[in-house]
């Protein structure tokens, strides 16, 4: 990482040609023209450093370390010589292979779409080094070995470092075909390697977008409408302009920007601003209105997303029908670093600093706002202080705002836009509010003969550039993914009502599974109870054709001692869910707080994510996913009253604190399959696991999230 002093020094000197890509490592990188670049993903320098070009943003999930591990494995590099730097925005070179022509991070795809690509990149680079050594030493390449960054020829006793070979390897043409390792020969993949960003994130030197400082830079906050869809009618800015440090007050599409020489001046300037809003076209419904409307919709069939067998016939012959309605609130992502972006306009283009999950979109949006070609927009991807999906907006909202501000003030100074926490919580782009209705028909023996899963809520992708990829026959797959899956039901339907509400929505860590896993897993427990079946046995019986699910469930149940007795006041619950190609089973051990809410004592988690590239990071993502999911399950809801968001900060949008974090044991299912994802799949199972345990303690089913609504409604039954 650049030190602050060097950062400022280089900024002052380099002027318009400045490049502030951050580095994970404080050691200076060799000049690019001296280095060997056998492909788009690695640069090997004469100083023996190996720099991996990370096409996926590091937002906490360990992507940089994982990407580097894959490439370093096939390169046979030594971990100590590895550095990472973010890729520039270049959708041709650095696209997400699972997304088509777009560079982006999301859907827990970083490892899955990089596995083959970076193995090949590493093996190709290795082949170039070996060819250079063979030519230099006059020996056959087949006799050369590479181990931990040292290239050796045993018969002659010759050895060289990667750095030694760089001058000799330059100009060699990389081979088109390379052999990849047999996984049994892996030296780095599957090991606990320290994270490459661990040191910078413990000494204050890690550079996030909020930390970018440029000569003459101004800071902007935007006064945003109190209702979604309201627009600026008039602005009284006299008091704002009197605030020391305020330099500009300008209208932008999302509100009124107050620009100042510091954050505090911008904040005070915004407080002094008086905006009259035109609320004519604004959304005025509240959460309670939406719940009521959605519940009414849930009584009627929606568009069919999935249909197996004949559910109506199944219900007709059912001896018993179980039914439940579920309510899921709007959720904010609330990453610790609020949204932010920095822009500097130059004579021939502009430069942006942001922690964006989709640089391609940011590049296009900024180009459009400023009337530039996208190639003239340079994006510097910074470390992101969390995201959970919030920095993956299909419309590049924050980048577009900062570009609009720069344009409005004339572009003479760099600008940093910051969303205050209040903006983050009140500014929209939430996980949508949903209502589900589930019904199951049981025959006289207690077998499930019909199952219906109905979902009501807004589409996340309608009207966005992701629409064509995700909406098929009127069904937004992100609304229904994970619903009632993967259990074997003879007669099953999933249907959907897509609603129109003026509240901006977005994917939130685990997307559809953030709600479908809860209703599926808790309703299955409810049905098991109604059928007098054991919830573990019933799941196992319904999973006979799903060996990965069964293996994960069995591993978690075994490690949790699921059949072993618990002390009084404790109960266990199951949550099992597949998302983004990974299967996660969690057993929550729960007691009761004095207010009747659950206290989660321990979670035993089993995950099948294919090859665990870095098992310690897999464990960390499960621990974090459990904590993130538990925060939402316990406390989180964005509520609207007459269209106005009621939460403003962490005092009202309550996060999980260390006092509420359970002990977590993570077990990884051993498998040789290609890696899938771990950033999101740890989230979905925890809420249903806790709710299922809570039932055993209280006899009460949870049909509304968060759990805090139980206490608020005074419905405790103990």
């Amino acid at each position, binding site marked *: 990482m650049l030190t*602050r002093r060097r950062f*400022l020094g280089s900024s002052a000197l380099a002027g318009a040609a400045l490049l502030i890509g951050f580095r994970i490592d404080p050691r200076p990188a060799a000049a690019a023209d001296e280095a060997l670049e056998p492909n788009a993903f690695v640069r090997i320098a004469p100083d023996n450093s190996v720099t991996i070009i990370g096409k996926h943003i590091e*937002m*906490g*999930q360990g992507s940089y370390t994982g990407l580097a591990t894959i490439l370093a494995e096939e390169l046979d590099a030594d971990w100590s010589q590895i550095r990472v730097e973010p890729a520039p925005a270049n959708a041709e070179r650095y696209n997400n292979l699972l997304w088509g022509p777009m560079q982006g991070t999301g859907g827990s795809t970083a490892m899955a779409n990089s596995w083959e690509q970076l193995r090949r990149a590493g093996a190709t680079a290795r082949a170039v080094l070996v060819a250079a050594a063979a030519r230099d030493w006059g020996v056959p390449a087949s006799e050369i070995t590479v181990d931990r960054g040292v290239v050796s020829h045993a018969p002659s006793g010759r050895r060289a470092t990667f750095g030694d070979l760089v001058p000799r390897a330059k100009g060699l043409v990389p081979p088109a075909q390379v052999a990849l390792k047999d996984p049994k020969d892996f030296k780095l993949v599957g090991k606990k390697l*320290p*994270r490459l*960003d*661990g040191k*910078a*994130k*413990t*000494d*204050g030197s*890690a*550079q996030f977008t*909020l*930390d970018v*400082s440029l000569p003459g830079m101004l*800071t902007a906050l935007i006064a945003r409408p109190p209702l979604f869809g309201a627009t600026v009618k008039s602005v009284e800015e006299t008091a704002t302009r009197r605030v*020391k440090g305020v330099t500009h007050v300008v209208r932008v599409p999302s509100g009124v920007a107050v620009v100042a020489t*510091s*954050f*505090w*001046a911008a904040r*005070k300037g915004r407080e002094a601003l008086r905006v009259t809003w035109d609320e004519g076209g604004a959304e005025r419904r509240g959460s309670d209105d939406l719940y009521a409307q959605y519940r009414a919709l849930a009584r009627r069939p929606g568009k069919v997303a999935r249909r197996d067998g004949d559910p109506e016939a199944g219900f007709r012959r059912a001896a018993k029908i179980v039914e439940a309605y579920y309510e899921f609130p709007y959720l904010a992502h*609330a*990453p*610790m*670093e*609020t949204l932010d972006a920095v822009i500097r306009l130059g004579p021939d283009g502009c430069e942006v600093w942001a922690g964006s999950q989709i640089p391609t979109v940011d590049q296009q949006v900024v180009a459009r706002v400023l009337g530039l070609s996208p190639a003239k927009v340079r994006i510097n991807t910074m*470390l*992101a*202080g*969390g*995201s*959970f999906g919030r920095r993956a907006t299909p419309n590049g909202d924050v980048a577009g705002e900062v570009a609009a501000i720069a344009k409005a003030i004339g572009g003479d100074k760099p600008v940093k836009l*910051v969303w*205050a*926490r209040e903006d983050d919580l009140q500014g929209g782009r939430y996980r949508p509010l949903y209502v589900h209705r589930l019904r199951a028909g049981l025959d006289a023996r207690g077998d499930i003969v019909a199952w219906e899963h109905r979902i009501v809520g807004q589409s996340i992708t309608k009207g966005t550039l992701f629409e064509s990829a995700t909406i098929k026959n009127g069904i937004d797959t992100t609304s229904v993914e994970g619903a009632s899956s993967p259990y074997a039901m003879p007669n099953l339907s999933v249907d959907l009502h897509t609603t129109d509400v003026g509240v901006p929505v977005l994917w939130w860590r685990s997307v559809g599974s953030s709600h479908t896993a809860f209703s599926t897993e808790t309703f299955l427990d409810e049905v098991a109870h109604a059928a007098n079946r054991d919830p573990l046995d019933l799941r196992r019986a319904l999973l006979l054709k799903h060996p990965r699910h069964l293996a994960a469930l069995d591993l978690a149940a075994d490690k949790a001692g699921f059949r072993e007795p618990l002390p009084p006041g404790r109960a266990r619950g199951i949550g099992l869910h597949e998302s983004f190609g990974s299967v996660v089973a969690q057993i929550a051990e729960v007691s009761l707080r004095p207010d009747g809410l659950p206290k989660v004592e321990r979670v035993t988690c089993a995950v099948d994510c294919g090859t665990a590239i870095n098992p*310690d*990071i897999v464990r*960390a993502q499960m*621990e*974090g*996913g*459990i*904590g*993130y999911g*538990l*925060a939402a399950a316990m406390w989180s809801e964005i509520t609207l009253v007459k269209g106005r968001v009621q939460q403003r*900060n*962490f*005092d009202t949008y309550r*996060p*999980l*604190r*260390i*006092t509420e*974090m359970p002990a977590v044991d993570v077990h990884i299912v051993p498998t040789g399959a290609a890696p899938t994802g771990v950033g999101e799949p740890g989230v979905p199972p925890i809420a249903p696991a806790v709710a299922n345990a809570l039932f055993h303690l209280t006899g009460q089913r949870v049909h509304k999230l968060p759990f805090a609504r139980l206490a608020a409604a005074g419905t405790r039954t103990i």
Partner: protein
Amino acid sequence: MVILQVNGSAHPVDLDSDVPLLWVLRDELRLTGTKYGCGVAQCGACTVLLDGRAMRSCAAPAAGLEGRSIVTIEGASGKVAEAVQDAWRRLDVAQCGYCQSGQIMSAIALLSEIPQPKDTDIDAAMAGNVCRCATYVRIRAAIHDAARTVRS
């Protein structure tokens, strides 16, 4: 003009009367390791040491802190600080890392006061520091680890 003692040196700064210490550290002194998370002392991302005790810098007007010793993550030093930072690295606590400066400063304050903390001590000292990545399992383990290092 106010003279702030930050990380062992005196920094004369011109201040608006109400500007919180956080923004003086970040915007004036360019000490950006201390983070903004909420602005209302609810999340702890802005935690620094004031005379050795953890303090939320986002809600503390800097003008009232003349003569007090302020230590930020950039100035963390000594046996306890090194043990904490080393434990954080060995256990790979950080995920996104944004809150970790604050977490580490709170942990240093805790271990400076209670060298062998129990879990309840950790809860009391760390409850004001939010981590949305929920690295809490490792924060707890790293504090115990650092306590062992300091003891030995």
